[in-house]
């Protein structure tokens, strides 16, 4: 199979990368009608599979689960999940031929095998849905020409998709139709109906394309979301211990700090996050992040280049073929870092202290979010797509770090994200070696404001605020956050 993106002429590459339109709620006025009375069969009953299915059924749709024979015979968790909730469960052979819509919610790595098993069984003119486009775009999977191919991708973990639906809301969602597979022109109507069925239409929907979704998703997860949060966390912890800060305190500050700090990011964007600092601290964080942006920009660009050229997915798929040798080795190494092995100390850290004593992470987050956003937009991805895959998802990953530290964060995200995260981390640490030499406990571990009188230069402060607030990620962010009116605080501290 050839990389689909690389088969396209440049014009068409840019066309598909540039699909990003924030949809008006009036586009969803038809509700779930396009899928009403149709047979929906979901393949995979993990967190996304089960929770999306529960939502779709509660929206009045006919949902059942197709599982592999072994999963049913051995009564695996996926089988229990589906049967315990009174869903019809059957094998591929039993259910796929009856399906009007097959929803593939298995892990990325299984897509090729799943599609190869499912496609011959699908009836003429049916629809196949993905929630991530890797298989189509990077692996170049060819789908039978009579089949419609759509994507509905809620931008939250499965448990949140369910929780927000039952609260009467939803999570932001991205939808797409594959231009090579829309023979009847019904793709958008069905994608919208599916999105309504999960509640996504209440929280903001971005019309995207398979190409735009894959290229931006890969970029975001490798760089700011997982890669930089990992690098920044480990470097910060090691620096504090090196400088004599209590290891338990350092561990707690790092584990939970990233969550508290990005909670401010979620509600108020980059400027909202920096507004939590005193004026002198804000100026310091601004200067640090400017420096970090200059240092890391080439690395962000390299990641984007490799993603666009297909080099990233090629090398990763080689590792798949090699039994995940690299992935497993790097995963084991992450479990061995000093941060991972030091439990969070039994100390009370107030919400504000996480900002005041962890200026360095504020600088890392600003640098990472802005760089990822800028690099994506330069590559032809639209600001709306770039926002979702950078700023929007950062607090979600931070939340998983707060729950279980880095090793488990990496286990929770997809293998694709995990692989990219390690690549970034390994390249980023040496790049930051000189920068980190200058770092002292005033910006990580102790209160930056201590011993300062709080005065700043007026003109300087105004300039800093202006630069922060007028960054394109802030402008598009203000618009998109407005649509997510019921953003919940999900905090472990």
């Amino acid at each position, binding site marked *: 199979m050839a990389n689909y993106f690389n088969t396209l002429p440049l014009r068409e590459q840019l066309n598909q990368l540039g699909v990003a339109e924030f949809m008006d709620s009036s586009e969803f006025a038809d509700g779930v009608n396009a899928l009403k009375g149709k047979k929906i069969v979901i393949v995979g009953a993990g967190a996304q599979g089960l929770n999306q299915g529960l939502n779709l059924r509660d929206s*009045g749709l006919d949902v059942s689960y197709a599982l592999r024979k072994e999963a049913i015979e051995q009564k695996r968790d996926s089988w229990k999940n589906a049967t315990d909730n009174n869903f019809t469960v059957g094998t591929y052979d039993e259910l796929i031929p009856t399906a009007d819509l097959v929803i593939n919610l298995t892990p990325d790595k299984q897509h090729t095998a799943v599609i190869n098993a499912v496609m011959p069984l699908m009836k003429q003119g049916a629809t196949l849905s993905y929630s991530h486009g890797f298989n189509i775009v990077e692996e170049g999977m060819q789908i039978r020409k009579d089949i419609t191919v759509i994507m509905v991708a809620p931008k939250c973990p499965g448990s949140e998709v369910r929780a927000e639906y039952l609260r009467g809301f939803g999570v932001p969602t991205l939808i797409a139709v594959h231009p090579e597979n829309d023979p009847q022109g019904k793709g958008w109507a069905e994608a919208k109906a599916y999105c309504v069925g999960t509640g996504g239409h209440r929280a903001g929907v971005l019309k995207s394309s398979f190409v735009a979704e894959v290229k931006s998703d890969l970029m975001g997860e490798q760089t700011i979301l997982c890669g930089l949060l990992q690098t920044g966390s480990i470097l910060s912890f090691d620096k504090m211990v090196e400088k004599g800060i209590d290891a338990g305190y350092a561990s707690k500050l790092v584990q939970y700090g990233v969550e508290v700090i990005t909670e401010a990011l979620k509600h108020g964007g980059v400027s909202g996050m920096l507004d939590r600092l005193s004026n002198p601290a804000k100026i310091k964080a601004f200067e640090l992040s400017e420096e970090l942006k200059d240092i890391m920009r080439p690395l962000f660009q390299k990641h984007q280049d490799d993603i666009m050229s297909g080099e990233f997915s090629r090398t990763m798929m080689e590792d798949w073929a090699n039994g995940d040798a690299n992935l497993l080795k790097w995963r084991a190494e992450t479990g061995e870092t000093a941060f991972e092995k030091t439990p969070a100390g039994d100390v009370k850290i107030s919400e504000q202290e996480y900002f005041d004593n962890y200026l360095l992470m504020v600088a890392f987050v600003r640098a990472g979010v802005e760089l990822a956003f800028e690099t994506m937009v330069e590559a032809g991805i639209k600001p709306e797509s770039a926002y979702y895959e950078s700023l929007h998802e950062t607090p979600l990953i931070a939340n998983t770090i707060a*729950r279980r530290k880095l090793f488990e964060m990496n286990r929770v995200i997809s293998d694709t994200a995990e692989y990219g995260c390690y690549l970034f981390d390994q390249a980023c640490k040496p790049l930051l070696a000189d920068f980190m030499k200058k770092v002292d406990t005033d910006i990580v571990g102790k209160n930056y404001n201590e011993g300062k009188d709080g005065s700043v230069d007026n003109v300087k402060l105004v300039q800093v605020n202006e630069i922060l607030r007028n960054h394109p990620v802030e402008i598009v962010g203000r618009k998109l956050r407005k649509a997510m009116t019921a953003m919940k605080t999900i905090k472990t501290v």
Partner: protein
Amino acid sequence: MTEPVVHIANLTIQYPNNVVLNSLSWSIQQGENYVIGGTSGSGKTTLAKAIAGLIPADNAIKLNFDASKSLPAKVVYISNWYQFTNLEGDRNFYYQQRYNHHQGHDTLTVKAELEHFAKKENLDFSAIRQRIQDFGFEDVQSSQLIELSSGEHKKLQLVRGLWTKPQLLIIDEPYTGLDKNARAVLNTWLDELVQEGVQLILITNDTLLPNFINRFAHVVNGQIEIVNSPAAFAKDKKRQKKELPAFLHEIPQTNYETVAEMNNIFIRYGEKVVLKDVSWKVNVGEKWLLQGPNGSGKSTLLSLINGDHPQAYGHDLSLFGNKRGSGESIWDIKQKIGIISPEMHWYFDQNATVWHTIASGFYDSIGWFIDVKYQEQKQIEELMEFFDLTEYKNQNLQTLPLGKQRLAMLARTIVKNPPLLVLDEPCQGLDNDQAKYFNDVVDELAQYGKTLIYVGHYETQLPSCIEHRIVLEKGEVKAIENITVKNKHLESAIV
């Protein structure tokens, strides 16, 4: 003379714009076991938390424990409701979550929670084995915390707190949500603890109290006042009954004859059977009382009707004349129902204002709303006026006293004038006068063609419009009967 166990001198506690305790002084001598009652919002809980050291009191409070006693020299405070966390440390729950059955384990089991607690506090499990049995709490030990009903949560909280046998034990609303048997068990247990040397402070307006309670007090104008008996507790101002807003006089349109009809329903979580062969029919306009001990399956039964239970599909269950799972969405169902329950209240949006809370009733959402229309805004305003909530309009729901929160939740329930009202222990935490007012409103509403399903433990706190009753026990229907005037105030062994 021995030193007082609790000595408070000039304790002042204020929140922004609100002085709660105003240079309060109070001494509790050994052997004095108090009940603190009085009006909601008077500062009872604040005082209790200050004594327990949970609110800073600037050295105004001195505790003197008796070194000669073998009991731990400490004070334990059991709050009105405690919020557990999931295994990953957060509290982001939604009220329907307990009906889910996933393979993942989100929260600890009751047994694990108790074992964890025993280890932390260095306690012996055999000491409470009998208590757990007396409480009827045996069967839930393998349940996860999220699966517990409100009454079962209360029991868990009490078991933990009483197990530690501290020298001073403060319980905030000990009886909330407990069934009749559990209340009696609790009082016996408390009496035994007193004999072992535990000193009690209970915060409640309830009158069925442990025998060793010998002192009564209430908080008035930020000061403590000792009174002779609970009858002398300050009461909330009698509410002026206002005229029900006109939109609630409209009889809801119904094109179906039964609101709910179910036959031979079984609900299981793995091996555990929660509802066993339940059949029940509710016709339009009927007024039902649903009763049963804690954990008997009442909330699960209601969740089938409210569209909240994922196992509702594939059963012989019809709602509003439609077979469940025939293409209706849960939002179509909820739109016809006004529901209130303790769980919904606890897991309600923490940031919702009173206005948001009521407005969300139009969308059956938890604190969320889209632009409400002019007519809807008018209905919200009329209801705020009716329940005297207008002045709290923009205040966060959770900052109000419980009684007012309940009224806001009730307003949310009726704001769309639904054909079916499902009121699951709506008076929990209200004193008798508040409950009476509340039930009078329910009676008045019920006149206008509404169907009612009401859950309540206390016979004295029921609306008088009730005409049928269904009783559950261990997931089975124990009785379905008409309630006549004669047995309306029945002395029931079940509740």
